[in-house]
């Protein structure tokens, strides 16, 4: 099998007839004694999506995104330019713009050299043609039928399939040449149910860095359809959510968005280098109860957030963020690692060639504890059991974060009670995990639908956690 670097060269450089000596020339021009680091990021992406609505395949679309980003770094200063055209003259022009932050003339002598390929955490496949168009369309129709078959109260079904094939080639300041082929598929089902004039929604989905067969294996996609209906029907029975501070039990898997918001962003290197994070300067301190160990792990095979190499050419890693409650480390890209005197943790990610890399999460999750999930719920007299969430947000500086429950139940006398309407939960990142008193033995990762936004850039991520109990969290319902 050809290496990822060979495939990436073939895809990105061959059409423009760009040779290694051309890359040497661009890098030579980019580097000067003032420049600490520079890189070229070539990218070619193909994205395809299909949408079923109201029983018909309403829309299909295809998009091409292709270009090159050129970056030069001098101390804390970054110069950046990009072009949608991959040609030598535009590369040289982008290079001139990017290096304008430095004062003195050229001095570099760079020899582009492919690196030894690091281990791959996904196959270099193109998911787009992994099913025929007929099969994609048939899958969407099956999802529609499966959802409607569940219950007569289902009045609307929307289902979508998305596949992306992303080919990147990265040239580092030392001339190292790195490539990565990143497949990504996703399926979502959204339903509306109606009963006696009351309408509610439910949605479910999943995906992976694999091809479309992942969605067919074990009837995964059909399970999304069933799950969306189940959630919508639960919501039909939902009563007002409570308002106030109370014990909250979070279910396993996707509720791990708690970790992403409450501590993940606050542990990204850029905020900590600048001292603007509520976690700045707190390495070695206790930020969680001793039950909590949290990692950011790019090395899980085929996961949505996994990365064989990050967007700066650093191999994906498993980084311990919190170990038995003690803050161990930050997530770093190269710029922030260098300025903080440490090494990149392989968390340098960018939305595309037209964006600058930033320290970003991959798959962030908490390791399992010892408690049986049933015992955790039984330990709560009155509180909330939240099992599904929408998105979340955090104010890095004050540490306040929110995440929105979309399926939750009251806990009454140690038993799961009636479902409640969706509500936002709010807490303080640096102390929420100190209130974790029980951690379940049932670690789950999410199904693969997460997208994280930072400074206007979106990247796919994963989260996960076992069932856990937070002794005190504020629940934003309407029932005071």
């Amino acid at each position, binding site marked *: 099998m050809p290496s990822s670097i060979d495939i990436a060269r073939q895809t990105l450089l061959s059409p423009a007839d760009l040779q290694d000596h051309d890359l040497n020339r661009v890098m030579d021009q980019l580097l000067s004694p003032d420049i600490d680091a520079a890189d070229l990021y070539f990218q070619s992406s193909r994205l395809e999506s299909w949408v079923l609505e109201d029983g018909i395949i309403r829309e299909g679309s295809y998009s091409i995104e292709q270009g090159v980003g050129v970056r030069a770094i001098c101390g804390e*200063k970054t*110069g950046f330019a990009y072009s949608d055209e991959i040609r030598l003259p535009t590369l040289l022009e982008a290079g001139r713009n990017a290096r304008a932050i430095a004062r003195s003339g050229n001095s570099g002598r760079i020899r582009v050299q492919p690196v030894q390929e690091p281990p791959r955490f996904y196959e270099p496949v193109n998911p787009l043609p992994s099913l025929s*168009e007929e099969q994609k369309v048939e899958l969407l129709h099956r999802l529609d039928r499966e959802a409607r078959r569940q219950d007569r109260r289902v009045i609307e079904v929307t289902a979508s399939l998305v596949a992306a094939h992303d080919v990147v080639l990265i040239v580092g300041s030392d001339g190292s040449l790195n490539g990565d082929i990143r497949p990504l598929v996703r399926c979502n089902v959204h339903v509306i149910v109606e009963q006696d004039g009351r309408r509610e929604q439910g949605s479910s989905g999943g995906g992976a860095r694999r091809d479309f067969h992942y969605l067919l294996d074990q009837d995964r996609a059909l399970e999304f359809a069933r799950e969306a209906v189940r959630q919508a029907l639960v919501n039909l029975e939902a009563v007002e959510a409570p308002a106030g501070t109370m014990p909250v039990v979070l279910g396993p898997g996707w509720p791990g968005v708690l970790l992403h918001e409450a501590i993940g962003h606050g542990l990204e290197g850029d905020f900590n280098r600048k001292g603007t994070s509520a976690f700045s300067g707190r390495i070695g301190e206790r930020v969680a109860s001793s039950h909590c160990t949290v990692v950011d792990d790019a090395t899980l095979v085929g996961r949505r957030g996994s990365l064989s190499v990050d967007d700066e050419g650093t191999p994906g890693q498993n980084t311990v963020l919190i170990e038995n409650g003690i803050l161990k480390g930050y997530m770093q890209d190269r710029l922030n690692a260098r300025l903080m005197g440490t090494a990149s943790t392989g968390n340098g990610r960018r939305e595309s060639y037209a964006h600058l890399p930033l320290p970003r999460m991959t798959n962030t999750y908490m390791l399992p504890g010892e408690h049986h999930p049933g015992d955790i719920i039984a330990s709560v007299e009155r509180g909330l059991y939240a099992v599904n969430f929408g998105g979340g947000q955090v104010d890095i500086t004050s540490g306040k974060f929110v995440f929105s429950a979309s399926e939750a139940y009251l806990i009454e006398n140690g038993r799961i009670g009636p479902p409640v309407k969706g509500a936002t939960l709010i*807490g303080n990142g640096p102390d929420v995990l100190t209130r974790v008193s029980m951690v379940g033995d049932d670690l789950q990762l999410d199904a693969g639908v997460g997208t994280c936004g930072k400074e206007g850039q979106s990247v796919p991520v994963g989260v996960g956690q076992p069932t856990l109990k937070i002794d005190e969290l504020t629940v934003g319902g309407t029932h005071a």
Partner: protein
Amino acid sequence: MPEQRPPSGEEMDQRQARLEQMVEDLLREARRQGASSAEAGVSQDSGLTVDVRMGELETIEHTRDQGLGITVYFGHRKASASTSDFSPEAIRETVQAACNIARFTTEDPCAGLADPGSMARTVPDLDLYHPWAPTPEQAIELCIRCETAAREVDPRISNSEGATLNTHAGLQVYGNTHGFVGSYPSSRHSLSCAVVGREGDSMQRDYWYTAARAPEELEASEQVGRRAGERTLARLGARRIGTCRVPVIFQAEMAVSLLRGLVGAISGSNLYRRSSFLLDSLEERLFPEFVHIHENPLLPRGLASAPFDSEGVATAPKDFVTGGVLKSYALSNYSACRLGMRTTGNAGGVRNLAIDPGEQDLDGLLALMDRGLLVTEMMGSGLNMVTGDYSRGAAGFWVENGEIQYPVEEITIAGNLRQMFAGLMAVGNDEERRGSIRTGSWLLESITVAGE
């Protein structure tokens, strides 16, 4: 450093002609490949982004974005494709991909171009193009002045996320096989600043920004910085409050998000999917009688102005809510057809939507509320569009006797948007004008605040 210079009028005319030709070529190629009708758009935009932090340059970003998209119809089967690569091979691949996908989508009687009669007949000049192109040195200087003003507000402003200047100018072209081709140039400039304050162990951050089509309409850089500094300072020492039901004022920037909820609920795509809490609500009273909400897509220099919508349909001023009563949905050609209605020229969204301002400024509203919560920041998405249920994280100020007492944080506010609209008591004259939705602050009847 290399200098950028705005293109001359002649260069712009040439570019415009070239992109229009591209659209026509795309449409012809789609027809050649068998499409019965098609629409296409091309855009090109270039700009400069400069970040300064702690008095030093942090990043200079030269941006140059282009995109081309085509939607083809084979009878009533629809498909689309787009590319950022304008090479002839990529363009051919794009049109082919769309035509191939259209073989597999389903016949949908509503899929197609808007009526030929609804196309914009002229493309009025809305004065949207004011290129600036400062040199990087000038941009850095502006950012430094802005950030310095923020940091000098108070010694407690201890850190900074920096100041950012962003300037963009470009061209957009849209055409379809009715023979319509329209294009217009536009520009957008903004300056923003975010600083961090510290008091004891706790830190707070806040920001301010200014945005305009023309550089001379931007707020002065020192003023932007000062407001960022003052807003951060005001949040220091924030505490929590107990769970309660109290009247709430949404400061203008926050009231925008409530109006955005209205826009979502009256948008065709949510209505025909029965995913809106305002289904079948035309002619219903949603707000008190004093409320009038309208849009003016033709506002000169408006940040959301456009001479035609994203389907080529002529845009025009329109009332959405009159005397508190919902008068119009916001529809594209497709959603209108699904609802048995006509397009309202809102393909691509609402443009310069505004609620009539009231008499009072923010202080006047605080006096009117007497005791309650002033919300100046919200977190999370928190709106269920199907039911109107609303729950978001918030920060702001506790108000007693019509005056701000202290900052509050780590609370939530919750209600139902339909009830919140009905409970609107007053709109301020402190109009927020930096986006596609314009409003003053809103005073609402009691809603639930969750805290300690």
